[in-house]
């Protein structure tokens, strides 16, 4: 680095490190594809829920390692200052927080939707301006306006 003595401000990632990272990414890619091909027969005798958990953990675990390798080496976050590291983590932290939203979806009752849920002609909670029809769920809190008819 003597010829770059005036440029101490940035880190130059050596080509050998980049090549090793590429090889790691390639090996992980082959692993995840290979596992997806052999998983149905390898996990034949495992209960489906457990097999699903194992498969998801392997697929997403490998994707996570690949993403971390790209972020740290290719994007050079490993060699950057703390504030850049913080920003790099921020987006993924937000993504984790978003799972709170998922908990909301997962724990609520999904309303029947007209045109989507088979056999359902009316919404579980009709709009207030919707005229009441036979077969609609009773509306306790909405006064049915008679003057519409």
């Amino acid at each position: 680095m003597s010829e770059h003595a005036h440029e101490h401000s940035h880190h130059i990632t050596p080509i050998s490190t980049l090549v090793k990272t590429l090889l790691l990414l390639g090996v992980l890619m082959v692993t995840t594809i290979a596992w997806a091909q052999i998983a149905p027969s390898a996990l034949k005798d495992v209960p489906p829920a457990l097999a699903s958990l194992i498969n998801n953990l392997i697929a997403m675990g490998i994707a996570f390692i690949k993403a971390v390798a790209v972020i740290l080496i290719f994007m050079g976050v490993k060699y950057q200052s703390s504030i850049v590291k913080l920003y790099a983590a921020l987006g993924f932290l937000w993504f984790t927080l978003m799972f709170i939203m998922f908990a909301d979806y997962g724990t609520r009752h999904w309303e029947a939707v007209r045109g989507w849920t088979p056999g359902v002609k009316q919404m579980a909670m009709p709009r207030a301006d919707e005229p009441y029809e036979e077969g609609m769920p009773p509306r306790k809190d909405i006064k049915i306006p008679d003057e519409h008819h």
Partner: protein
Amino acid sequence: MISLKKMNQPQDTVYEQFEDLAQQQETYVLGMWSFLVTEVMFFGVMFMSYIVYRWKYQPYFYALHKELDWRIGGINTAILLASSFSVALAVHYHQRKKKMNVLVCLGFTNLCAISFIVIKLLFEYIPKWNHGHYPGPGFTWDNPYVPSHIAQLWFSLYFGTTGLHGLHVLIGVILFSVLMYLIAVDHPSISDYLPTEMLGLYWHFVDIVWIFLYPLYYLMPK
């Protein structure tokens, strides 16, 4: 006379609002990362809707993923990983001011990006379009095991997410072409390696999105 061998660049300039070169460069990188955080949020909701609906319709989603060929997706994954490597190499050479190497690396990256789009169109989007597998009134579906409306939901997620990703790849192609031109003609706006570094960060992000999309859509675990 423009030389292809050497970068005709002035000595790195420190602009007056910065303390030194290190602070100036960190500012650029930090700005790019702020943009990438918004991109994570942008793609995050696409992943979230995927997770919510896959949670609800897991058996159907598993049946539907067989509509995609993991080999085509695998080739595209390899292409994107190689292009990510070559753009990291381009940054390396730009830091060492080796112009020809930078142009070759960026050219290879651009070629990979174009191949990605071509493969996606020729082997995935166009055949699916011809089979009527696009959500909307013209949707044709003859698999009795998967209800048509859930198939449409899945194809909406597939086209929406990979389409948004493909749009990012297309933007990458345009930006790489512009950057290569500016570097080739020694444009004054390319005063150091940072434009290559910025675009490299963008491109790596596009690669990371695909790293997650590929197992979720093509190798969907049962």
